[in-house]
């Protein structure tokens, strides 16, 4: 009974942190605090950026926690099976070859290429893994992911090596992740994927708890392990690919947020998943604030901020809670 009640306390706390982060994110920016004079900037520039940061942070944290559960490895992030490499390759192709051709297109092909690249890469990983027995063991799948990721990186390096400095710089900026050009249309574009993906993942949080005792024991407890694994991987990958397509590769969130949540609120996925969602959203909103303020009017890539702020915090937590990891 006590465990259940404590879970609600943590979730409530996380929701309050998120609300505070939203307020801070909306209040602070190069154009100053909220007033009727700059309402246009607040509504069209700052608020979509806060909304997108929340969506991206929530999705990456939730997907990271789910990946960690399904692979029973706390060091895993949602890019494990090649989503990052595939998205990066798709973006690289568009930036290197497509910019002149597609400049007058109605729809920017960059997010589409990144989204497709991520899904294709993870599908290849899954097919390769399944061909070599990943149905019974997740290790094969992880190894297949490593192979696919190296392959995409190799192709990407080849393309970049033959490109101009401007292309290299643009790709590099995209890889570091950014919310600079966030608009309400970006929010509308990714929100459906994120909602469906999150709903599926949250619905499987009890299954992830059972999987903590390993594939075999989970199977004897009535869980169809390979089915749960593929559902969770597909849902987490679609959500990750969607947010990556608009934000680039923001690293670290997917590992550090679930970890912090686990250390504070315990290891049960019934708690880790919903709390990670809220904390991840808050974390990325806050990480984006120094991103737009530090080098104003220039931008500091948000991926740099997440790693720079997150890593020391993470190390301190690891030190103080050594026993639980």
């Amino acid at each position, binding site marked *: 009974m006590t465990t259940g009640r404590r879970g609600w306390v943590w979730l409530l706390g996380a929701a309050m942190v998120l609300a505070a982060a939203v307020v801070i994110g909306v209040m602070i920016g190069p154009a100053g605090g909220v007033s009727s004079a700059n309402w246009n900037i607040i509504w069209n520039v700052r608020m979509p950026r806060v909304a997108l940061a929340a969506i991206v942070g929530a999705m990456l944290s939730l997907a990271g926690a789910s990946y960690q559960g399904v692979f029973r490895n706390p060091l895993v992030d949602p890019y494990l099976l090649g989503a990052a490499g595939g998205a990066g390759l798709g973006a690289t192709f568009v930036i290197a070859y497509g910019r002149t051709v597609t400049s007058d297109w109605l729809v920017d092909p960059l997010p589409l290429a990144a989204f497709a690249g991520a899904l294709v890469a993870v599908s290849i990983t899954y097919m390769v893994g399944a061909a070599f027995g990943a149905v019974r063991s997740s290790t094969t799948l992880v190894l297949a992911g490593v192979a696919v990721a190296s392959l995409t990186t190799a192709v990407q390096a080849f393309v970049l090596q033959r490109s101009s400095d401007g292309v290299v710089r643009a790709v590099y900026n995209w890889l570091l992740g950014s919310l600079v050009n966030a608009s309400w249309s970006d929010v509308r574009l990714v929100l459906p994927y994120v909602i469906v993906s999150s709903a599926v993942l949250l619905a499987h949080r*009890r299954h992830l708890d*059972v999987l903590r*005792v390993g594939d075999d024991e989970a199977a*004897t407890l009535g869980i169809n392990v390979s089915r749960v694994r593929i559902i969770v991987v597909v849902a987490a990958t679609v959500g990750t690919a969607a947010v990556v397509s608009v934000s680039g590769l923001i690293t670290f969130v997917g590992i550090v947020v679930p970890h912090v949540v686990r250390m504070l609120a315990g*290891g*049960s996925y019934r708690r880790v998943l919903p709390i990670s969602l809220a904390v991840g959203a808050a974390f990325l909103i806050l990480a984006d604030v120094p991103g737009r303020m530090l080098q104003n009017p220039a931008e500091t890539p948000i991926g740099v901020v997440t790693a720079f702020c997150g890593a020391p915090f993470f190390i301190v937590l690891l030190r103080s809670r050594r026993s639980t990891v």
Partner: protein
Amino acid sequence: MTDLALRELTVRYGNRDAVHPLSLTVPSGGWLCLIGPNGAGKSSVMRATCGLAPHGGVIAIAGEETAAMTARERARRVAYVPQAPVLPADMTVFDYVLLGRSPFISYFGSVSAQDRVIANDILQRLDLAAFSDRMLSTLSGGESQRLVLARSIAQGAPVLLLDEPTSALDIGHQQQALELVDRMRHECGLTVVSAMHDLTLAGLYADRLALLHEGHLVAEGTPAQVLRPEILSEFYGVSVRVHYDDDGTVVVVPNRRTR
């Protein structure tokens, strides 16, 4: 009647036969212990019974074939305790026992108040109530073994499979664990199948023993019928003395080769 029947059971891994056709029945409430050297097929028989290894032949629980069951249906009938259960360090004792209720929770459902009552009741009966909020990493070997048993009892399955339940325990905790299994067998009417290496303990607790050797069933019967020096020396390649006590206890002692 929840008896367990294996008919012409076979288990193959790739092109290696781990279990050749064997037939065994365990009556409702009975305790069958599988014995035999390492690699004889004891674990394979149990893994096939709980659905972890594909098998040929028929496995029937109370007359129902397991092959036709879903994982959930099978989990309500068979509970399995592996040799080295995975104990997540940061899971609480209570949450761990609750895992046993999984087969009764619908796909999108969550733990019910009744599941919590059942888990609490089992923790009480197994003297684990005081540990309820403890993390699994803080438990001793004996406590862990009792806890794993608690989870399998929470599963409410009439058939309990135990793969070497006492191999990591000292003699006191071995006795404690096996006494507990025996108590639960009587209280809950469980049908128990275990694999054990300690032949004396196997004979002490099980009604019947089945000796496996290279995937074949080579002897089956009461402890006194199976634990005979000539049988053990043939299949284990050991020289042993066997004492038959008046109360029916069979004691197996290896002979020292050099003295």
